[in-house]
């Protein structure tokens, strides 16, 4: 079966809808059939923006998933944000800047993607403990391609080294890895096969790399859409008829 490719982290300028349009059109041209764009959680603006983006995506037959990036300072703050926003967005990604937040995010079933800062490698907390928690909670490790393109020299070398360890840890605990572009402009967008090729720089094998840009992102969106559906009751259980419709 032909793979369907997804980029779960396009980051156009939120104030410029034309910029978002150009990036969405570019994503379609590059072969993506599903994209996600993080929006700010402010309720009225977020809904309006999401509607606009969905409309633009429909022009190019690209599926759109709404995404929220959380960057909590404490586990308590994370729990509050999840309680407030989980049912409003199809993808929730948490940028973990402390060990405590990373632990809480890894074990929470409401978190889809775990992100770690690339600027400070000492604050990348994805170790065996995190991986074990994440493997039980269906959280995935997200790796952004953008820093691989913008960093040079020793900084990039250190990042490769850190990513290599994290990828090995994720694989040993069977934590899904999701590759996304993190692109803020068309110049930072790459085709799915090019993104998959970049992962060879930190020893991710080709089949896993292709799954990271297709199978796992799609699974996250499918799972969450099912959960957010009004007919959802519990995993594996959904409402098919109710009231007089039951006969």
């Amino acid at each position, binding site marked *: 079966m032909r793979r369907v490719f997804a980029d779960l982290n396009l980051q156009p300028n939120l104030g410029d809808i034309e910029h978002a349009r150009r990036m969405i059109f570019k994503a379609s041209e590059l072969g993506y059939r599903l994209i996600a764009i993080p929006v700010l959680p402010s309720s009225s603006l977020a809904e309006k923006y999401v509607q606009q983006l969905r409309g633009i995506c429909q022009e190019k037959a690209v599926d759109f998933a709404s995404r929220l990036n959380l960057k909590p300072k404490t586990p308590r703050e994370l729990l509050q944000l999840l309680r407030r926003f989980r049912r409003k967005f199809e993808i929730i990604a948490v940028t973990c800047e402390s060990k405590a937040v990373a632990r809480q995010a890894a074990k929470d079933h409401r978190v889809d993607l775990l992100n770690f800062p690339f600027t400070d490698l000492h604050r990348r907390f994805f170790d065996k403990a995190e991986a074990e928690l994440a493997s039980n909670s269906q959280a995935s490790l997200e790796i952004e391609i953008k820093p691989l393109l913008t960093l040079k020299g020793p900084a990039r070398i250190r990042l490769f080294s850190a990513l290599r360890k994290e990828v090995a840890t994720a694989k040993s605990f069977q934590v899904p890895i999701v590759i996304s572009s993190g692109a803020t402009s*068309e*110049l*930072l967008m790459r*085709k799915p096969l*090019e993104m998959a*090729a970049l992962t*060879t720089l930190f020893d991710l094998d080709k089949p896993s790399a292709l799954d990271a840009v297709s199978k796992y992102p799609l699974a996250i969106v499918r799972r969450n859409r099912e959960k957010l559906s009004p007919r959802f009751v519990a995993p594996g259980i959904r409402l098919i008829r109710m009231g007089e419709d039951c006969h």
Partner: protein
Amino acid sequence: MRRRYLALKLESAEKFEAKEFLDALWSAILRLYGEYGASKTGLALVDYDEEGGLAIIRVAHTELEKVRAAIATITDIMAKPVVIHVLTVSGTLKTLYKKIGTDIKRQSAQ
């Protein structure tokens, strides 16, 4: 040694000469894989169209993914922003030209 031919598209506001493009490509490969890794790629520029921003390169089939990754890391040529995408890959030149559906002008590549 089996080879793969890649058709590349350069997207930029500027135009680049064949030498500038090739230098940028070698530089990216050297930066990532060093001289040893670069020597294994068997890289050669087969064809180049400055006006259309198209290039055809040849690489060893075992090093295809490495070269693809190196191409993806190129963000500028001569300090001018550029994106290079791989349009298609083929085992023969004839099939490659058929896939890209165009004849590109032959320029002497250095």
